[in-house]
Structure formats: structure tokens, C-alpha cells
């Protein structure tokens, strides 16, 4: 921006001027690029059909307390990744459903993993107790998983198949038919393949 002042004082040298023009245009283009990036769709649905980002999570509840989970280790199994928080009112609706699904599908090679987003651990654990949740849940340290999955909020649920591909992204609470339908579809796809 101060660039132009320079040229004024010098007797105009065309080469210098071109350099400054290019610098100015470069800055403008960089600025536009930043804005374009800012405008990208900020929603996790863009991940649908794409490989799921790896994650690492240490469970903090019940029988899994202290156990480390990573997507890498669960390759070959179906993973349902659910983001929730104790301050999230909408999450109340699906927590019992998820626990029920865990009990129904656990033996068929389905992992249900809860990611506690932006929560105080004690509050999160009390919340899990309230719904009698037993599947592994853990805190999202540094909000890394939330960011990697480009979540927009809670609740959000990702259905990951055995190849580690995200087959479905659910923004907002799940309903029972939807949850069971999706799980059945994922299981069926595997037996065919």
C-alpha cells in the first residue's frame, strides 16, 4: 500500500514499476485467496464419501476407562462416532438410542464411540451416568477430533464403514429408525462385499 509512494519519487523505471505492480497484485490475490478460503462450506457433510480422518481418544467412562481408541486400530469394523456435550440439550434425545444400539449391535462388530466436546470432565461423566451410557466415551483433547471432522456443532454423528470411509454424516439428533437403518445398511454392504 505504501508501495506506490516509492514510484512517485523515482524517475520512472519501467522494470521497477512492473515489480511493484506484481507485488501489489500478489497482495490483492493473496487477500482474495484468504477470503475464498473463509467462504468454503464449513460443514462436515463435505466429508461424506471420503476417508475418515484418524483420531485418538482415551475413554473415561465405565469398563473402558483409560483405554485408548484410534480409528486405525478399529479398521475392519464399523465405527459410529458421536459428538456430544453435557450442555447440549438436543443430545438428550439420542443418548438413550445410542446406548440401545450399542447393546443391540455390539456383537456384530460395531463400535460406538462418544466424543465429549468442549466439556468439563466431571459434568460429562455425570451426563453419561444420567443416561446409563456404557459404550466408550472420551474427552476431545484440544478439540482436535471435532476440527478434523469439520463439525459444525453437537450432536453430530459419523458412520464409518470397515474400509474407513465415511458413509453418512448426521447433523443434529438421530432417530431410532434412522440409526438402525444406517447400521443395517453398513452391515449388509459388508456381507455382500
Amino acid at each position, binding site marked *: 500500500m*505504501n508501495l506506490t*509512494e*516509492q514510484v512517485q*519519487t523515482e524517475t520512472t523505471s519501467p522494470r521497477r514499476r512492473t515489480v511493484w505492480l506484481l507485488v501489489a497484485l500478489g497482495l490483492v490475490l493473496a487477500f482474495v485467496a484468504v477470503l475464498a478460503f473463509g467462504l468454503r462450506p464449513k460443514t462436515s457433510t463435505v466429508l461424506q464419501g471420503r476417508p475418515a480422518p484418524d483420531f485418538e481418544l482415551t475413554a473415561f467412562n465405565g469398563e473402558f476407562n483409560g483405554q485408548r481408541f484410534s480409528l486405525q486400530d478399529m479398521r475392519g469394523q464399523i465405527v459410529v462416532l458421536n459428538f456430544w*456435550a*453435557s*450442555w447440549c440439550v438436543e443430545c438428550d434425545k439420542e443418548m438413550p438410542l445410542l446406548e440401545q444400539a450399542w447393546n443391540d449391535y455390539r456383537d456384530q462388530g460395531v463400535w460406538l464411540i462418544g466424543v465429549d466436546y*468442549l*466439556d*468439563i470432565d466431571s*459434568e460429562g461423566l455425570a451426563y453419561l451416568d444420567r443416561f446409563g451410557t456404557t459404550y466408550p466415551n472420551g*474427552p476431545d*483433547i*484440544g*478439540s*482436535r477430533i471435532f*476440527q478434523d471432522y469439520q463439525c459444525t*456443532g453437537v450432536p453430530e454423528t459419523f458412520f464409518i464403514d470397515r474400509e474407513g470411509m465415511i458413509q453418512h454424516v448426521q447433523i443434529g439428533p438421530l432417530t431410532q429408525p434412522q440409526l438402525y437403518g444406517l447400521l443395517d445398511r453398513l452391515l449388509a454392504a459388508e456381507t455382500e462385499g
Partner: protein
Amino acid sequence: MNKKRRYFGWLVPCIILTVTVAASPVFAQQPTADEINAVAKNLSCPTCTGINVADCPTETCAQWRAKIGELLAEGKSEQEILDYFAARYGDHVLQVPPKRGFFVLVWALPVIALLFGLAWLAYLMRGWAIRRAPVTVESVHGDQAPRGVSGQLSDDASLEDGYLKRVQQDLEKLS
């Protein structure tokens, strides 16, 4: 020698006692809302925009304030608490990015830009000063008419006189 050792003998239990007593929850004071807010001001509400945790009315922030109170009661310092939140929830819960890695640029770039601007200004002015030098010498000798500039400028060329002249001109026009 002996005496000294005896003192040391007492010193250690004394220290242990003081530390345990001070650290025990009984003696830890429940922090006030103001103390909590002072820390919470440096965190931004993660689920809203442009509001810090102290001013934010949401449930999340209420939980966070309670957590800050807990940590304060444990005797943690403000910086330790902020570090805890940054590590636990990510750097973006801080009101200002931590000064490390890429984030240093937040602070560095404005400083660099300002220095660059100042250097440029100095460069420009030096250039002018050098080219002007002979004229400056001349002007010491006599009150020459400025080059290539309309006469109106000479009004302003000296301080108060310019004023008085202006005002007088106005008056002449009036009468």
C-alpha cells in the same frame, strides 16, 4: 555446627506441615466471582462469537466458570489455568493466541509492518532532504518566493504571521 543441624532438623517438618496445611482444602479459600471473572475474561466462549467467558450467559460458560473456581481453589495461578484450558480444548479458546509457532505472527507482523513503514518514510524523507539541500541553504539568505508554487503558500510559510495575514485579508474583504 551442631546447633545449625538441630535447626535444620526442625525446619523440614515445619515446611512439610505448612505446605500440607496450606494445600489442604480446609484452608483453600473459595474464590469469589470477581476472581473467577478475572481469569474467565481471558477465555472466549467457544460456542458463541465475540464474547468472553466472564460475560457469556450460556450453560457451557457457566460450567467453565465453575471449573475455573475449582482450579483457583486448588491454588492454580491464572496462567496455569489458561494453559490448562488451552491444552484441554484447543488454543482457540484463548482470547489472544499464545505466543508460539505460527501465532507469533499475530504480534510480529504489525510490528514488522510499522518498522517497514517508518523505514520507508525515513528513506523518502532522506531522499528529499538530500535533493533539497542547496535550496535550504539559499532560503537562509533570503525569503525567496517558493519554486513552482502559487503565491498563496507564502502566507502559511511562517507561523503566526500567516494567521494574522489571513485574518487581515478576510477583514479587508469585509470592509
